[in-house]
């Protein structure tokens, strides 16, 4: 075996096209890997995949469903993306989502009867504040004592979800209910569909935030400073950038966006507060952020695909395929794409074998 013939070179510039091509290729590889497992449990992967695709993406109802399921995922994906943009590993979108939902939900359920637009506006702000403040705990610890934000945000998730459980099983539980859900929010606060498309207008909130985030990161001095900090904290300090302040701003913003997932989910989809409302969206958000390479616009698209993936499980469950297939696909696609990142940065070439001639290689031994 002669590994010497393989050469690995670092690529200096990566075009957008090759980035997209790379992602698509490794998504397919992930699917191919999963199909082995699908075969192993006794199904035809082609049949399973085509059923899933036709159910979720090839008809209007399916697409509507995908968007609806993707709605909280979009905001969680955006939340994770901006934090990761500054190398802050916020894996607490789940908890920030819950806290946003709790604070905003409390206002929707028990707040004063103001005009509907005002109430929606206040609820929107409260959701953002709930998530933002919750993230701020980790941010302060990180900024002032360099406490690992990964651990803190993860632990905070459990606290937030248990607090939500407590409210929904306890003081907020609807009368004559045995399930942990609150009373519905006032009917007027339901977010309407866009025209008669059946697509909830919550998606516009997500798209608007994605667009703002894109502009913020790409064109503002703040976005520039975030990029400097991500690339080199030392150089950022050298340039007089207040890194501490940016940790607070970015993690706070990240939490606020996750909190808004609570807003769209409550006003657009479930219309009440319920236990386990985030349902893992915060974690799926991490997958989405990675698959989108932290690009806010890509987050929207990937979220819809992921939403559809979750929906389509129901369709193949009828065939007898275990419902965990969605999680499995998510996992294998993510691992595959992250592993494929390598090929975005390095080029591998096989050189012709004109190295030190192979004969008498044993000359080394004396």
């Amino acid at each position, binding site marked *: 075996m002669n590994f*010497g013939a393989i050469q690995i070179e670092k690529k200096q510039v990566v075009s957008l096209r090759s980035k997209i091509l790379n992602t698509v290729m490794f998504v397919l590889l992930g699917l191919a890997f999963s199909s082995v497992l699908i075969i192993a449990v006794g199904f035809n992967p082609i049949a399973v995949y085509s059923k899933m695709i036709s159910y979720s993406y090839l008809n209007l109802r399916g697409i509507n469903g995908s968007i609806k399921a993707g709605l909280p995922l979009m905001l969680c994906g955006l939340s994770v993306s901006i934090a990761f943009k500054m190398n802050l590993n916020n894996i607490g979108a789940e908890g920030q989502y819950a806290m946003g939902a709790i604070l905003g939900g409390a206002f929707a359920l028990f707040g004063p009867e103001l005009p509907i637009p005002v109430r929606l506006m206040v609820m929107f702000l409260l959701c953002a504040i709930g998530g933002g403040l919750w993230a701020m705990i980790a941010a302060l610890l990180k900024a002032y004592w360099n406490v690992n934000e990964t651990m803190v945000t993860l632990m905070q998730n459990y606290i937030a979800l248990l607090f939500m459980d407590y409210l929904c099983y306890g003081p907020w539980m609807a009368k004559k209910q045995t399930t942990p859900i609150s009373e519905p929010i006032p009917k007027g606060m339901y977010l309407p569909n866009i025209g008669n498309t059946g697509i909830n207008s919550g998606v516009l909130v997500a798209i608007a935030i994605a667009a703002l985030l894109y502009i913020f990161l790409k064109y503002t001095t703040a976005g520039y400073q975030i990029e400097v900090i991500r690339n080199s904290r030392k*150089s950022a300090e050298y340039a007089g950038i207040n890194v501490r302040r940016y940790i607070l701003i970015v993690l706070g913003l990240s939490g606020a966006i996750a909190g808004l997932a609570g807003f769209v989910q409550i006003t657009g989809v479930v219309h009440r507060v319920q236990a386990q409302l985030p349902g893992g969206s915060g974690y799926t958000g991490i997958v989405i952020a990675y698959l989108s390479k932290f690009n806010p616009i890509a987050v929207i698209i990937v979220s819809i695909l992921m939403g559809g993936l979750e929906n389509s499980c129901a369709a193949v469950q009828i065939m007898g395929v275990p419902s965990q297939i969605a999680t499995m696909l998510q996992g294998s696609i993510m691992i595959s794409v992250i592993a494929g990142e390598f090929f975005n940065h390095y080029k591998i070439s096989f050189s012709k074998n004109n190295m030190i001639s192979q004969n008498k290689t044993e*000359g080394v031994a004396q």
Partner: protein
Amino acid sequence: MENTVLLEMKGITKRFGKTLANDHVNLRLYKGEIHALLGENGAGKSTLMNILLGIYRPNSGEIFYKGEKVSIRSPKDAVRLGIGMVHQHFVLIPTLSVAENIFLSTGNCSFILNRAKMEETIRGYSKKFGLDVDPGAKVWQLSVGEQQRVEIMKLLCRNSEIMILDEPSAVLTPQESREMFKTLRTMAKDGKTIVFISHKMNEVMEYSDRITVLKSGRVEDEMLTKDATVERLTKAVVGSRTLNKKVARAKKESACVLLEVEHLHVKNDKGLMALKDVSFSLRAGEIFAIAGVAGNGQRELAEVLAGLRKVTSGKIAMNGRDITKANARERISLGISFIPEDRLKMGLIPGMNLKQNAILKSFREPEFNRFGFLRNKPIKAVTERFVATHDIKNGGIDLPVSMMSGGNQQKLLVAREISSNPALIIAAYPVRGLDIGATESINNILMEQRNKGACVLLISEELDEIFEMSDRVAVLCDGKLMGIRNTSETDYEEIGRLMSGESA
């Protein structure tokens, strides 16, 4: 010197991507000689030695050792053949003793350590070659010079026949260097073959038997040292390239004090005191050099003046105003520019493009910033201006700076740092690792700034550079300022003595 060829490299070619680091290089090493490998940075010296050590594998070429063709596939092969290297950055474990470090590298220690025998072997070599090393001392207690001796001892204990030293004098004072080369000579007399990499012509002429000059990956010239002249070496190293005209030093009189540092104490990253009671004052329109072996508080001094490190005690005043507590951003607006020692870690962001690096200090200015949004046109314009005025070679201002050569990166950084018309420029090793052309440009820029009335604090370990550039020179040793001299009234001898801690 015997005349038997010990090792021969024939037609060695090594490519990294599109760049040709070694292009059909032939190198012949004789038994018992001291062979100098001379060349600018990037000439391919290190690549060639790394091939000999089995760290890189050549794309083509052959190596003959004692007349037999060999293939060196890994550092292990090199060790087996008896080829060893003292790297510029030592590979020692600070908490272990000298003897432990040495026997760790020989790899032939038995299960139960025989310390006495280890130490005996080391003392034997110490005596034989005049290599002063205490086998029982812990490495962290040793000075840089002593650590280098431990590295050399490692090679002796491994029975290396070819010993390669990468810029061995870079970390030493002139006196220490002389000692080290004396030791190398005794080892050569004993039959060892020594190769040392250098870019200093004087030490090559003084201490070697034979010289090979590399230039852009090729062997440019090869000679016995007794046939070498400065002209011949210069021509081989630099080629026919004409250097920029040097900017002359303008006469300056009665300059006012710009910056005053009083009884400064500063800690390093480990929390140990790195600067001890340092006091000096800087005047406008002078180049004030800080000489000394790297690691004696230079980095801490540069960072504390730039506002990147906290003052433990003491005072810094600029134009009479106390700025001890001013942060980095305030210092920037006070007109303090900083050229850090490791530009890719601090100062430039390798993964970001030329434009983004050009505005690193000025993005807040209204010129580049309107209501929090970056203004692309002026940013592009200023970058193009930097590129044009300083002749910065680049593949496009939208490409990452990591794609430029070190010299061009440094020119961009310096262009940015002087663009704000600074009052004080802290330049830490500004020409380290640059080729002669880039070195000249950077030195000219600094001299121009001085002539314009700025103060340049030049931190350097190259005495040639210091004597050429500076008006006054101070010496740092172990965090203490050993003395301040007018450059015209001192010499290498005196500065060397101060560098080694002898107070005058």
